[in-house]
């Protein structure tokens, strides 16, 4: 027997469910799944006091499903949200992912700010070779720096990323099995702004990757499905595969692990205060830094 949409059934309508959300024991038709996901995103924004309708939001957009979906949903919910894309100069990949970001900007009639790394410093493969640092490490440094700087330069109040539940659980899992207590202290859907850092939020932290992918499919939001060529063997992907296996055996593992961490463990970790240096201003560019020269200016010097 085919499952029926629960929400339709509650309204006295007999409609087949096409989305089975086993985590929540909820079967939904397409329309109710779409509104469920949008409502869940808005609830997350309100629950964690991320932002209001008057604040200007800059969404980090990679061309992937989560950031594009987030950008689309924020605008649909009535928030003021523009996009920000970093062209990392990865041959055969960056040019394609940028097109998806540009297409979304057109679709929702919002601005897309673009930083081209080849013009700023160099493509990240070259930066990685010359600095002798892994590409993924360079990618993270570059994106965080330009995301924050661009938001300030253009007067945005909030930075939003498309990190989803699977991303957060992957990081939480990795930090737990390695007991990275400092990182566990900082893991939260909201990073408040301070000393040159703009407030940063993750409105998709309670949305799973599969839910996000289905949202893209039903709304015909096209995104880059090809993996970044530099992500092969990435620890984050390996952790997600392990977690997927756990979820096969423990129903609702991901959402419970994450929400229970935020509810019970995160507050306990805040009581353990380890005093560290406050950020200062980079002596070259003036951006916040925990060293005299920030990471990006340090990379520029090496090149």
């Amino acid at each position: 027997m085919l499952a029926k949409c629960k929400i339709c059934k509650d309204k006295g309508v007999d409609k087949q469910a096409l989305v089975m959300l086993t985590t929540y024991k909820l079967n939904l038709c397409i329309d109710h799944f779409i509104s469920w996901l949008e409502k869940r995103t808005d609830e997350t924004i309100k629950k964690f006091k991320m932002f209001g309708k008057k604040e200007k939001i800059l969404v980090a957009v990679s061309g992937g499903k989560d950031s594009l979906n987030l950008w689309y949903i924020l605008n649909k919910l009535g928030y003021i949200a523009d996009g920000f894309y970093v062209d990392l100069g990865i041959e055969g990949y960056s040019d394609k992912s940028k097109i998806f970001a540009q297409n979304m900007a057109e679709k929702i009639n919002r601005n897309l700010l673009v930083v081209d790394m080849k013009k700023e410093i160099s493509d990240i493969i070259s930066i990685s070779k010359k600095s002798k640092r892994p590409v993924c490490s360079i990618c993270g440094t570059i994106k965080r720096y330009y995301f924050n700087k661009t938001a300030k330069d253009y007067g945005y109040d909030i930075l939003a990323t498309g990190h989803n539940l699977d991303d957060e659980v992957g990081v939480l899992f990795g930090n737990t099995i390695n007991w990275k207590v400092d990182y566990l202290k900082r893991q939260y859907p909201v990073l408040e702004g301070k000393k040159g850092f703009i407030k940063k939020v993750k409105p998709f932290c309670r949305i799973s990757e599969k839910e996000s992918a289905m949202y893209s499919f039903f709304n015909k939001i096209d995104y880059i499905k090809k993996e970044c060529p530099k992500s092969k063997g990435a620890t984050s992907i390996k952790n997600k595969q392990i977690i997927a296996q756990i979820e096969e055996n423990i129903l609702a593992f991901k959402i419970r692990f994450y929400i229970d961490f935020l509810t019970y463990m995160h507050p306990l970790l805040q009581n353990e205060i380890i005093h560290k240096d406050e950020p200062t201003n980079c002596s070259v560019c003036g951006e916040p830094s925990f060293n005299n020269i920030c990471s990006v200016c340090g990379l520029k010097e090496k090149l």
Partner: protein
Amino acid sequence: MQITLRYRDEDITLNFENKEVIKVSDILKKLKLTDKTAFVVRNGEISQPHENIKGDDNIEVISVISGG
């Protein structure tokens, strides 16, 4: 039996030896995916793991795991 499908923006062909009937779950298994980490779009609609594949089906497998 051979099935050609779209996966991560590329066309690939999967071989199923000694199988006359291929299910959606067989495709996922062949690609080392599960219904938690992927879904199959058949002729423009999401298919459930127990459904059979027909020879002329237009198939795309959407893997949901991203990262790096």
